[in-house]
C-alpha cells in the first residue's frame, strides 16, 4: 500500500513539474525579443567593426511597453491558487533567470517602500499621487523630499531617487511613442483612446493577480530565508508595472482636454523641464542615441545643422547593407523570416559573387528587378482595388490643398498570431503554441490564463 501511495505521489509531482515547465519553453522561443521586433522597429545591432569602436558601457535594459511581462502573455500558465509554497521556489528561480539584476534590485526597493507607506503614512501616499500628475513642478518634489527626510532613513532616500528616475524614464517612453504618433498625425487620438480601453481591461486582470501575488509573498516570508524573499519579490515585477500603467491612465484621464493637440504639447514641455534636472539613463550613451529612432532623428538634424550629415548617412547605409546578409533577419538566408521570393538561379549568382569577393554595385539589381516585377504584377493590382487606395487619393488632394495628410489607417489584425510569424521553424512553433496556449483555452482554463 505504501509503495502505491508513493507511486501516486511521484506521478502527481511529475505532472506538476511538466506543468511548471510550460512557461520555460515559451521563453526558449525568445518570444520577448519577437514582440520587440514586431511592434517596434527591428532593434538593429551595430555592425561588428563599428561595435568595437563604439563599445561604451550599455545603459540598463529599457522597459518595453510591449514586453510580455507587461501584457497578457502566459508567463505562468498554472493557476496561482493551486501552487504550493515549495513549488513557488521552483518557479521563482526560473523567472529570476530572465529578469536582470538591476531590475531585481529596483523592484525589491520599490516593494519595500510601497509596503511601508501603505502601512504607515497616508499623507505620503497623497503627496506621491500628486507627484504622479502629468505636470511635475520642482517645488512639489522638494517638499516631498523634505517630508521624507523626516520620516524615512537615508538609504531609502537614494532608493526613491532611483524610483523617480524610473518614472521619468517611463514618461520618456511615452513621449517617444507620442512623437512617433505625431509623424502619423491625427491617428494618434484614435489610437490613444483604444489604448486606454485596452489598458483598463488589462489592469482589471492584473490587479487580481497582484493580490494573489501578495498573498504568496506573505507565505514565502514565513517559510523561507531572506534570499528567497528577495527573489520572490522579483516575481512581483508584473504587478508593479501594472501600477505604472494605472499611473499612466490617471495621467491620460487628467489630461483629457477639448484640444487633443494641446495634450501633446503639455507633455513634451514637462519632459523638457525634467531633462534640465537630469538626463534620462537611456540617453546618456552614444550607443543608445544611435539605437532609438527619435534620438537618431534629432542627432541627424543636429549634424545637418553642423554640415556633417554625410557621416550618419553613410553609417546608416552600411547598416542597411549589412542587414541584407544578416543570417537572422536577412533577405537571402533560407531560414530567416524575411526571406524574399526569388529565383534559385539569381540567388546562386549573388551568393557566388559574394564568395568571390565581388561586391559590385550591380550585385542586387537583378534580384531587385525581379521583386519589383513581382510587386507590380501581383501586389500593385490588389492595392489598387483595396480600401487604402481611395484613402491615398484623398490624402494626395489634401496635400495639394495645403492640408495635413491623414496617413494610412491600419486594419485591426489578430495581434496574437502576429507574434509567431517571425519564428524560424514556424511549423515547430505552431505545435508549441497549440500545447501551451490553445489547449488550456479549449479545456476551459482560460479564465486563469493571461494573454
Amino acid at each position, binding site marked *: 500500500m505504501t509503495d502505491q501511495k508513493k507511486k501516486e505521489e511521484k506521478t502527481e509531482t511529475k505532472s506538476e513539474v511538466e506543468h511548471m515547465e510550460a512557461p520555460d519553453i515559451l521563453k526558449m522561443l525568445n518570444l520577448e525579443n519577437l514582440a520587440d521586433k514586431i511592434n517596434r522597429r527591428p532593434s538593429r545591432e551595430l555592425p561588428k567593426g563599428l561595435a568595437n569602436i563604439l563599445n561604451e558601457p550599455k545603459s540598463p535594459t529599457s522597459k518595453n511597453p510591449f514586453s510580455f511581462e507587461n501584457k497578457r502573455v502566459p508567463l505562468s500558465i498554472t493557476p496561482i491558487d493551486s501552487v504550493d509554497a515549495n513549488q513557488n521556489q521552483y518557479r521563482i528561480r526560473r523567472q529570476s533567470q530572465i529578469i536582470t539584476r538591476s531590475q531585481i534590485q529596483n523592484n525589491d526597493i520599490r516593494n519595500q517602500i510601497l509596503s511601508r507607506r501603505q502601512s504607515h503614512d497616508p499623507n505620503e501616499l497623497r503627496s506621491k499621487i500628486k507627484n504622479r500628475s502629468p505636470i511635475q513642478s520642482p517645488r512639489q518634489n522638494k517638499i516631498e523630499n523634505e517630508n521624507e527626510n523626516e520620516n524615512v532613513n537615508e538609504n531609502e532616500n537614494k532608493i526613491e531617487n532611483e524610483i523617480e528616475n524610473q518614472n521619468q524614464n517611463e514618461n520618456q517612453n511615452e513621449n517617444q511613442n507620442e512623437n512617433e504618433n505625431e509623424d502619423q498625425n491625427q491617428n494618434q487620438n484614435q489610437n490613444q483612446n483604444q489604448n486606454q*480601453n485596452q489598458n*483598463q*481591461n488589462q489592469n*482589471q486582470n492584473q490587479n487580481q493577480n497582484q493580490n494573489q501575488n501578495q498573498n504568496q509573498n506573505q507565505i514565502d516570508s514565513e517559510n523561507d530565508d531572506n534570499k528567497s524573499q528577495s527573489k520572490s519579490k522579483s516575481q512581483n515585477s508584473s504587478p508593479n508595472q501594472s501600477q505604472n500603467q494605472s499611473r499612466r491612465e490617471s495621467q491620460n484621464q487628467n489630461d483629457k482636454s477639448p484640444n487633443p493637440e494641446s495634450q501633446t504639447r503639455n507633455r513634451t514641455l514637462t519632459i523638457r523641464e525634467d531633462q534640465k534636472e537630469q538626463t534620462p539613463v537611456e540617453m546618456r550613451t552614444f550607443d543608445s542615441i544611435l539605437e532609438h529612432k527619435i534620438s537618431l532623428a534629432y542627432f541627424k538634424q543636429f549634424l545637418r545643422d553642423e554640415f556633417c550629415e554625410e557621416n550618419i548617412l553613410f553609417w546608416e547605409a552600411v547598416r542597411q547593407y549589412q542587414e541584407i546578409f544578416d543570417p537572422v533577419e536577412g533577405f537571402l538566408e*533560407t531560414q530567416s*523570416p524575411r*526571406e*524574399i*521570393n526569388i*529565383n*534559385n*538561379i539569381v540567388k546562386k549568382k549573388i551568393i557566388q559573387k559574394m564568395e568571390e569577393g565581388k561586391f559590385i554595385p550591380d550585385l542586387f539589381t*537583378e534580384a531587385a*528587378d*525581379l521583386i*519589383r*516585377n*513581382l*510587386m*507590380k*504584377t*501581383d*501586389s500593385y*493590382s*490588389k492595392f*489598387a482595388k483595396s480600401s487604402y487606395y481611395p484613402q491615398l487619393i484623398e490624402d494626395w488632394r489634401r496635400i495639394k490643398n495645403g492640408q495635413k495628410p491623414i496617413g494610412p489607417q491600419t486594419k485591426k489584425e*489578430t495581434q496574437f*498570431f502576429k507574434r*509567431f*510569424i517571425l519564428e524560424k521553424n*514556424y*511549423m515547430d512553433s*505552431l*505545435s508549441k503554441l*497549440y500545447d501551451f496556449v*490553445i489547449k488550456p483555452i479549449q479545456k476551459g482554463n482560460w479564465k486563469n490564463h493571461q494573454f
Partner: protein
Amino acid sequence: MGNKNLKKKRKEEIARNELVEQELKKSDLVQKQQVKLLILGAGDSGKSTLLKQMQILYKDGFSKEDKQLYRNVIRTNIITYIKILLKGVQMLDLKLHKSNEKIAEDFLNLPDIIDSFTPNSILASKQLWNDPAMKMSFEKRAQFQLADSAGYFLDNIDRIASENYKPSDQDILNCRISTTGVKVVEFLVNNQPWKVVDVGGQRSERKKWIHHFDDTTLLIYVVAVNEYDQKLFEDNTTNRLHESLKLFETTANNQFLSNKNCVILFNKTDLFKDKIQKVNFNKCFEDFKGSNNYEEVIKFIKTLFVKAGKNTKRSIFVHYSCATNTNEIRFVFDAVQSTILENILKEQGFM
C-alpha cells in the same frame, strides 16, 4: 470625494465591459455563419487559377483594367519564355538558323521586367518560336524552369502578337502571376458568405500562411500532378511532387487543421496525360511498380496523399481536374458546397 469618483469609474468600466461583450457575441455569430476556405499547395500548382475561376463563376468576371494588366503580363511572359528556351538551346548545344542568331543575342540582353516589352520584340519572338531548335529545347523543358502555360501561349502567339489583342477568359486563366503574401476574397455562393484565402506557394511564402489557420471550415490542397519530373523553383534539386507530398503531410497534420475536412485537388491532369506517354513515372517514385498508365499512376499518387493526411477526425475528398477548365471546376465547387452543408448539419446534430 474619492469614493464617488471611484464609483463613477466602476460604472463606466462595467458599461464598457458590457459593450465589449456584446460586440464579441456579434462577431461570434458572424464567424459561425461564415465559411472559410483555405487554398494551399506548393508553388505553381494552380491555387490562384482556382480563385480566378471563382471570380468567373460567382462574380462578374474580369474588369477592363484587369484585362489590360493581363495583356501586358502575357506579352512579357512570352518574352521570358523565349529567353528561357534560348538558354536551353545554349545548354543543349543546339544550333539556331543563321538568320535567327542575331535576334537571339538581342533577346538575351533584355531584362525580365514588365516594362521591357515592345511590339517589335513580340514579332521577333514569333520568328524565333518557329525555329526547329527552339522546339527541340521546348520538348526537353523539364531540365530548366519553364512555366506550364508556356506551350499554350506560344501556340497562340499569332493572336497575341496582333495589335487589337484582347485576352479571353481562357488566356487569363492560363496566365501565370506568382502571388506574394496572402489574399482574402469574399464571395456569395448560394446566399452563403464564403471567405476564400489564396496564398503564395514558394518556400519563403509559407511563413505567412499561419495568419489564416484559425477557424477554417475546409482545406483545399492543390497538387500539380504533371510536375513529377521537374525540380523546385527554389533550390533546383528536390523533386516537386516529393516536396508537395511533404508539405501536405506537415500542414494537414498540423494541430490547427488536423480535424478539418480536406479536399485534395489533383490539378493539371491534361498536361499529365501528355507527359505520362513520354516520361516514365518510375523516375520520380521508385516504389511504383505498375504499368505506366494514366489511371494506375494517378491511383498511386492518390493513395500516397490520402495516407499522408489520413485521420479519424476528418474525411478526405479527392478530385481530378484541370483548373483552366471552367466546367470541371464548377463541378468541384458544387461538391465542396455539399461537403460544407454536411459539416453544418453535423455541427447541428442532424447527422
